[in-house]
């Protein structure tokens, strides 16, 4: 009996614990997947995969997860990450054709290479340590050289220029990082269904990496529960944005290419991921509103939306949403099965043209000057056509202004002269007080920290172009500091241009179900755009020279030390005596040599004393003969002993 009780007790405890866990977490972990497809005006198609994984606040300290990746929750708990975003990007976002003023572009247009920023929930003094540990952990997790961001020369602590105001924010980027499938695989591992099922099954590597642009992003934020004793919840958002060129057979150049999922990715969606709470496919068509009829209530009108004279969709959308600039078709893929796979297609019938909404100013950045000594960086902001229509203009002192934040990191070997900052508005130089509202500079320290420049410009609304230029000197590095391909040059990370008074959001006319993708689109996001990465060639020393340089320089020192000491040490009496003794034993050739050296030394030769006693010379010769005999004897002895053995 006792033994029975004893065996039951642990079970009871376990059960009560499980019950407590079940009740403690009010909501379960959720996973949802979505795919947004969007034809782009330049005959390309954008595919945006969006996966969201929510771990609700729990008191189990995240040890037990059903769907949520354990690696991420451990990361969050260990380094106390409040918010973090990591992106791997290849290719450049084309702001002109792909849009610059919608939530999609402001969130997913990322700089080339790796970009990482994180906000920590630790005391200020530990932020840098946490950052370093985090970079190492992420480096292992994603098979990328994120650990290079550990060094203080490669990251910065933006104060306000980045858009997130926090003193515990760290930002770093690696423009040179090559992004490939080895980074995608660990990223996919975090999904509950990996790429085996559901929407992620579309990610056929060759088709994904064939695109013009792909950016995989991982954004996580912790949600404070506000309850005592309860940990914080984590929201993990994983997106993959790909811009693909559909294969087209039509010869008409102004005709948009027709495409389907299978033609884009070479695969079809066969059912959703069973673990996902929702899995939807969205198709966004821009510039399709206005001339269309207002009422969508009738079935015919709704039908007209997806099958009309311009285009038709291969599947009937489950819902159609209207937002300010276009239409959004929603498809539910739960209904698809093996026999009836989901293969959405868009077939254009008539040539159609539209334009994307663009950011108020289009930014580009370039280098000026030639040579390897110095140069200048210029950032050019050009007004776009759509600038007049945009909201978010401000009136200050009766003037209409556009605010633009510029955030730029300079590696230390780009030695920036901040006093040479020049601002030109419409080709006229302006003083700082006119257009520069705020500026924050943290200069770089050689080999210790990178420099950072944050600027807030306040430009008049009617501005056509604004240019900022700043001069720099190129640094000279130690040979060990050059990368293996030193002559390729060094990359300056992208500058970030953001417009603090402009926010992009999609406002849907009807209230929507809780689709994570759409709710994230609905949130107001800061309009931001990254500039190009700049390649700065630096001078290289001769890498094969260290030994030569060391020996030659040391020779110079020896020359200095030796000759100066020689001059100081020499006394005239000694010299005469030396010359006399030299003259005694010199023959004809030796005399000539002596004369030559004296000439080289620049000293008048002391005439050798005329009287050279024969006795002395004979004595010298006997000495010489004695020496020769001695050496010969030694040689003979050596020979004898060595041959003996």
């Amino acid at each position, binding site marked *: 009996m006792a033994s029975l009780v004893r065996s039951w007790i642990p079970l009871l405890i376990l059960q009560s614990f499980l019950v407590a866990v079940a009740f403690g977490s009010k909501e379960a972990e959720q996973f949802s997947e979505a795919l947004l497809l969007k034809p782009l005006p330049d005959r390309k198609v954008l595919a945006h995969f969006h996966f969201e994984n929510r771990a609700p606040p729990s008191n189990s300290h995240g040890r037990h997860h059903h769907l949520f990746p354990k690696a991420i929750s451990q990361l969050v708990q260990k380094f106390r990450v409040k918010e973090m975003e990591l992106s791997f990007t290849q290719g450049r976002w084309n702001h002109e054709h792909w849009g610059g003023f919608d939530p999609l572009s402001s969130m997913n247009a990322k700089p080339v290479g790796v970009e990482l920023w994180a906000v920590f929930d630790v005391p200020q003094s530990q932020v840098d340590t946490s950052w370093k540990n985090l970079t190492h952990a992420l480096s292992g997790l994603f098979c990328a050289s994120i650990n290079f961001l550990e060094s203080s020369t490669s990251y910065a602590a933006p104060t306000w220029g980045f858009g997130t105001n926090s003193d515990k924010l760290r930002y770093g980027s690696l423009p040179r990082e090559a992004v490939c499938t080895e980074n995608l695989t660990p990223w996919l591992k975090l999904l509950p269904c990996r790429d085996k099922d559901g929407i992620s099954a579309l990610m056929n590597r060759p088709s994904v990496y064939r695109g013009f642009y792909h950016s995989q992003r991982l954004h996580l934020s912790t949600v404070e529960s506000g309850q005592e004793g309860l940990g914080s919840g984590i929201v993990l958002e994983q997106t993959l944005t790909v811009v693909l060129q559909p294969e087209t057979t039509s010869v008409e150049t102004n005709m948009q290419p027709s495409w389907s999922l299978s033609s884009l990715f070479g695969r079809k969606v066969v059912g959703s991921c069973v673990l996902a709470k929702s899995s939807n496919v969205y198709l966004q068509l821009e510039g399709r509103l206005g001339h269309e009829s207002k009422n969508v209530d009738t079935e015919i009108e709704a039908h007209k939306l997806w099958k009309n004279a311009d285009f038709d969709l291969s599947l009937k959308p489950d819902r159609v949403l209207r937002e300010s600039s276009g239409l959004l078709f929603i498809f539910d893929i739960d209904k698809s099965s093996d026999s009836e796979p989901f293969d959405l297609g868009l077939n254009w019938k008539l040539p159609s043209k539209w334009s994307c909404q663009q950011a108020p100013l289009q930014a580009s950045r370039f280098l000026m000057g030639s040579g*390897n000594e110095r140069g200048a960086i210029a950032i050019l902001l050009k007004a776009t056509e759509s600038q007049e229509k945009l909201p978010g203009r401000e009136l200050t002192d009766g003037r209409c202004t556009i605010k633009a934040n510029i955030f730029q990191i300079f590696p230390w070997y780009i030695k920036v002269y*901040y*006093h040479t900052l020049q601002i030109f508005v419409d080709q006229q130089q302006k003083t700082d007080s006119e257009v520069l509202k705020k500026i924050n500079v943290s200069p770089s320290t050689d080999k210790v920290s990178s420099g950072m420049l944050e600027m807030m410009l306040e430009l008049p609304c009617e501005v056509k172009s604004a240019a900022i230029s700043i001069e720099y000197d190129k640094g000279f590095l130690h040979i060990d500091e050059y990368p293996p391909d030193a002559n390729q040059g060094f990359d300056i990370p992208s500058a970030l241009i953001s417009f603090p008074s402009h926010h992009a959001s999609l406002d849907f006319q009807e209230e929507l179900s809780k689709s994570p993708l759409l709710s994230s689109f609905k949130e107001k996001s800061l309009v931001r755009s990254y500039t190009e990465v700049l390649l700065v060639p630096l*001078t290289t020393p*001769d890498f094969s020279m260290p030994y030569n340089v060391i020996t030659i*320089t040391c020779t*110079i020192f020896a020359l200095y030390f030796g*000759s100066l000491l020689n001059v*100081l040490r020499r006394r005239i009496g000694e010299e005469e005596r030396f010359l006399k003794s030299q003259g005694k034993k010199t023959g004809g050739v030796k005399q000539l040599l002596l004369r030559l050296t004296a000439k080289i030394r620049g000293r008048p030769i002391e005439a050798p004393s005329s009287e050279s006693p024969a006795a002395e010379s004979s004595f010298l010769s006997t000495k010489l003969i004695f020496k020769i005999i001695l050496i010969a004897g030694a040689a003979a002895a050596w020979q004898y002993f060595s041959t003996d053995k």
Partner: protein
Amino acid sequence: MAEEQNKKPCRFWIWASASVVFRLILISFPGNLNLSSRPEVSTPLTSIRRLAEGYWLKQASMSPYAGSMYHGSPLLLSILGPLTVQSIKGQPSHLLCSLVFVIADILSAMLLRGIGQKLQMAYGLNARLLGFLKSSRDKVILPCGDIAALVYLWNPFTIVSCVGLSTSPIENLAVVLALFGAVTRRVPLAAFGFVMATHLSLYPATLAIPIIIILGYGLDAPPIKLFLQTRSVENEKSSTSTVSKQAKSKQTTHLPFLWKTVAHFLFWVLLWSLYVLVLCALSLNKYGGLEEMFKRTYGFILSIEDLSPNIGVFWYFFAEVFDFFRNFFLIVFHVNVLFMLLPLVIRLKHRPCFLAFVYLAISSILKSYPSVGDSALYLSLWALFVNELIDMKFSFFLFCGYLGISLLSPVMHNLWIWRGTGNANFYFGNAIGYACFQIVFVVESVSAMLNHDRALRRSSSNHGEVKS
């Protein structure tokens, strides 16, 4: 004779003012003729561009030393800084700065002239005492002050560093001021110049020894033995009384060392350095104070952090040397400056001004960040000793060497940095050549001076023999 004496200063003033006019013409060209960015002219320590950056940072309420840009004195920053941002309408920017440097150059030249006149007087006096002047009337004493001043004013190195807006004219002015103060026995002035020079560029700290010797023993003179010799010869010739014997025994003892003046000098050095430090601390008290200043100025000089090319040999050496040995070589190279101090003092203690020249030349060879401004200073100090060094060897060879280096250096730099057809070894080879020429120059000057002393001894002994 008197007419000629009048004519000479007149000619000097014409040439001096011509050099000033030449400078004014050069600085009125826009963009400083691109000289301010030449690595030969502006080093990380003397570049006006870096000074302007430091001033900007300070105006933006940041430490002027933030950002590894400025490594100079905070006092220079508060004097020259405002001038870098102000510009007269319609004139090239930095004109005011250039004017300051021109004034500094003129002052240095005038002070050099003062030093030279003193040295010339001393030379004449000594020659008369030793009895050379009476015997060889044909040997004219050259006006070394005028020559040195003109060499300083017309030296292309000086002109280039003045027009190229490097702060070395001011550093040179401080050094010359210290020497002038010592030569004219104005102790506070000497102490001020010495403290300022050391504060601005650290290496003139070695000048403490020559200045103390000048103040203690007096100006350059032939070795004391010679005087004793001639005196004794004369004494023997005139009479052999007990009084003179007593006097002779007194003379064999060393020249009196003026401890009081030296103590005075040291006191003033202490006072001035306290004053300078307080001023620096006041101007930097929000940005890390004196510790930061020493780390960013002297620390920067001693640890050779900046590897940008200059006409020295250190930049390439420390760009190439293995990190493991870096500290070792740093110590060895810096100690080399100090190693030679003692042997030179022992051998040249009767010629303290010449000793100062040798020290300056050595420090300009072994400097972390040398520029042509340093060469300009020691070349014009060399000209102070034209009387003594007139028999110097290899002078034509050295002249050609300096000329060739200053012509080749821009070419090599252009080939390497701008055209990309050459590599770093081209420019480094040039720097090595320059170092060699400088070394030969110093060694030959020292040897010529020693030979001059030998010749004096020989001729005085001959004299004595002839007289006896």
